[in-house]
């Protein structure tokens, strides 16, 4: 008997195996997202927008309507879709460079306007598609192609704490969390809540997912996992930061 690994129903099987590097965190993030879409039964209503960077490789990943946009501009594109057709369930999928650097004004203002969209940001501490440059999320002392002696916080400042920033600028109705590929069940739960929050019309939902990049980190399997599971959460605290549903239950 052969066993076939269970893939989410919303995945597009013709494009599997996917295009990400071996060991990349995107596949796991998208598995958790696919399962969340399946469990909510919203495949026909989802608009999946993906950014430039490694996230663009997800452009044909799901059997859902998908638009691949420009670097940093996925948030406004799906905002435009949602405003024009509020019946859709819109997801903006991006990396740390797209969300916290080139598209940070869009993230900040979509959050401030409480747009009824779900932004998912994959944090792997570097610009991976372009060859491993320093990102807003590169950890202090971490070596990249543009910080070859390690990120010097005196020169480059501290890493961006995105969910904390989004939580600080949103008011009632927003859902904010940080998950990790080291805990997929929890991550899927955050995605479900973030999507449900949009479906309820409460407001902006934002989930950052800590993810691996062995290609650019130049780490073996053990060190890769250790970095994701142990090192990243020291700076990027995993957990829910804002949950309107809990507030209602108080």
């Amino acid at each position, binding site marked *: 008997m052969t066993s076939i690994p269970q893939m989410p129903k919303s995945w597009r099987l013709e494009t599997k195996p996917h295009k990400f590097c071996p060991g990349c965190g995107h596949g796991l993030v998208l598995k958790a997202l696919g399962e969340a879409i399946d469990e909510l039964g919203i495949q026909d209503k989802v608009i999946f927008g993906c950014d430039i960077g490694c996230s663009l490789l997800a452009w044909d990943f799901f059997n859902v309507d998908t638009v*691949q946009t420009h670097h940093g501009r996925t948030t406004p594109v799906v905002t435009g879709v949602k405003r024009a057709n509020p019946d859709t369930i819109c997801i903006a999928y991006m990396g740390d460079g797209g969300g916290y650097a080139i598209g940070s004004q869009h993230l900040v203002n979509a959050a401030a306007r409480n747009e009824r969209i779900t932004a998912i940001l994959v944090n792997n501490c570097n610009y991976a598609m372009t060859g491993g440059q320093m990102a807003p999320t590169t950890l202090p002392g971490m070596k990249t192609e543009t910080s070859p002696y390690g990120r010097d916080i005196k020169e480059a400042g501290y890493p961006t704490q995105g969910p904390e920033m989004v939580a600080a600028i949103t008011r009632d109705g927003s859902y904010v969390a940080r998950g990790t590929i080291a805990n997929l069940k929890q991550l899927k739960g955050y995605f479900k809540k973030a999507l449900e929050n949009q479906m309820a019309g409460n407001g902006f939902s934002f989930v950052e997912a800590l993810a691996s990049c062995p290609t650019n980190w130049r780490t073996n399997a053990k060190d890769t996992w250790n970095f994701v599971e142990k090192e990243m959460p020291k700076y990027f605290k995993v957990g829910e930061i804002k949950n309107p549903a809990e507030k209602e239950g108080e």
Partner: protein
Amino acid sequence: MADKPIQGEKRVFMTGNEVVAWAALAAQADIMYGYPITPQNEIMHYWTRMAPKFGKRFLQTEDELSAGFTTLGGVLAGRRAFTATAGPGNTLMQEPMSMAEMMRIPSVVVIQQRGGPSTATVIYSQQEVTMTAYGGNGEGFRIVYSTGTHQELFDYTIKAFNTAWKYRFPTFVLGDGYQAKMRESLTIYDPQDKGMEMVKTEAFIGKEPVNGIKEPNHIRNTYNTEEELFDVLAKYMEDYLKIAPEIVEYQEFDCDDADLVVVSHGVVSRAAKGAVQELRSEGYKVGYFRPITLRPFPAEQLRAVADKTKTLLLVESAYGQMAKLVKDAIFGSTVAIENLFKPGVGITSEEVVDKVKGLL
């Protein structure tokens, strides 16, 4: 909810920005996305006052990048969506419009040109011709209407939606601050009462399932290989060249026996027209040519004029942006070329008359 914004037709006296808002309403635009910049602000002011009465929407974005990209999102959702901008805002608008070119998204943008480069002046120029026709990292797969009167602002704003949705190329209405801010008389109307049908819109994404089955659409602007991109662009070029003759618009008069033809576009063509009429009444053999579409450009028509006359006088409120389009169009012609260039400054018919008299 109110009925149609305009019943039948109505004679009005209003500013150009107000005209654009009325035209978008008459064209059944669904949503405007915008960011404040002079001299286009009043398009938003009028739209936000009138649109909710007709179930239309507005979103004020954080910048023109966002205004452009949200507009594209609205269009992808199958809505008649538009935005308006000017100057440095037009510069930012080029990024979303390059995506519109690559993905054949029928977006509509109204540009009210102001002085440049940089922040420059807030009122007037014709210095956004090159950027509007050929901006972004692309090939200029766009349609650009250069209007000269308030009636044209109304007519071509309505037309822009139909052109965009029929041919699926981003479409621009290129006005300027003089047109935006001045008041003049025009007739506004409901296009359907005039027998004009609005081209039906269609959702690229977010379509309802058919018989319970949803066929997802995957759209992108990134390609893996050079050949893949080349094939896409070759098809776009073929499409563009094929439809160009249907889209091209221009005006000309008194060119047949003219020793000199004045070439101008937009609001400057009003001064040129007055000048040519005055010179004719004084016996000068002068003609008038005006491209209405700057992209595609009425190249054949202008070449025919260039072949008949001795001199083309190119008049524009820029240092030769229209002139580049003209020279490209008539390449190989031996006609003499003279210029009256006043970047960022208005041009009167007296100036054109004086210039022509100095040449003939």
